[in-house]
């Protein structure tokens, strides 16, 4: 009984977060400027990091947290690099 309650709560959280990712994805598709798309990517990756951590808890696997950490790091670097490329276009 307790186990079913736990998985239900986590699944609800995952679905709510996935709905957030989809909303950001829509903004990424229609965003009029490149900067809008980068904003969408930035928040999508943060939400995705949390979703990986939630999956780690759902499957009771400690090592999935490593995956979340590395994913978050690579997403941070991606956003910084794209932002730098946009900046260089100025002059």
């Amino acid at each position, binding site marked *: 009984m307790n186990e079913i309650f736990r998985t239900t709560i986590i699944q609800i959280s995952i679905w709510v977060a996935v709905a957030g990712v989809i909303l950001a994805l829509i903004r990424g598709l229609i965003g009029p400027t490149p900067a809008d798309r980068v904003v969408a990517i930035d928040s999508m990756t943060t939400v995705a990091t949390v979703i990986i951590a939630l999956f780690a808890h759902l499957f009771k696997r400690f*090592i999935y947290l*490593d995956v979340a950490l*590395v994913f978050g*790091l*690579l997403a941070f*670097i991606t956003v*910084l*690099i794209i932002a730098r490329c946009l900046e260089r276009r*100025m*002059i």
Partner: protein
Amino acid sequence: MRHIFALIVVGTLGLGLFYTLSHIPFGKGLSEVSKYYVENAIDKNDPHAGATNIVTDIVVLYRGFDTLGEVTVLFLAATGLSVFFFGLKKKEYTCEPSLIVKRGTGIIFPFILLLGVYIFVHGHLTPGGGFPGGVIIATGVLLIYLCCRDYKAPHSLFKVIEGSMGTLFVIVGLIGLIVGGSFLFNFLGAGKTGELVSAGIIPILYIVIGLKVGAELSGLVKDTMEDV
């Protein structure tokens, strides 16, 4: 017109991928080779085992020779790229990077190195390994290059690490050849699964591969980012 063409190409690729993947008999019977791997990698009395997942066992112990080949391919690619970039005039950065990004990168850089080392030291216990650890170290170097325009990486240090680690890999393999009769034989035994010091030569090989890949990719980043 271009958009429609791109849509058609992407749609065809996606459909083909979906069709191919849905016809793979995933998780249904195993082939002869897979059966051999699965039975022997789970058997903990076998010296060819000891990691916490089968994939690591297969990649390092059964197919360690392939890993040597992969490292060689990476080395050749890095060398080729540096030859390609030699004498090419790079575009200058026209605007100064932001102070906040600079300071934030400065704070986070050592922790990226620490994470990379953690990933390859624990390669036999977690899904990581030598290649991901090396890539994370190289991304740290890339961040520094993005944020300090006049940074010069210690290129000779990269070369020394790369060469010595490549030699060490072959030496470990040769010791296995002398002791056990086959290249990269696991001469240290399996040990107790789940401990840090276990799985014989897997941690050693992963540390060697991690340092080598990290140095190689950092050199590659240096070649592409620095003015020649």
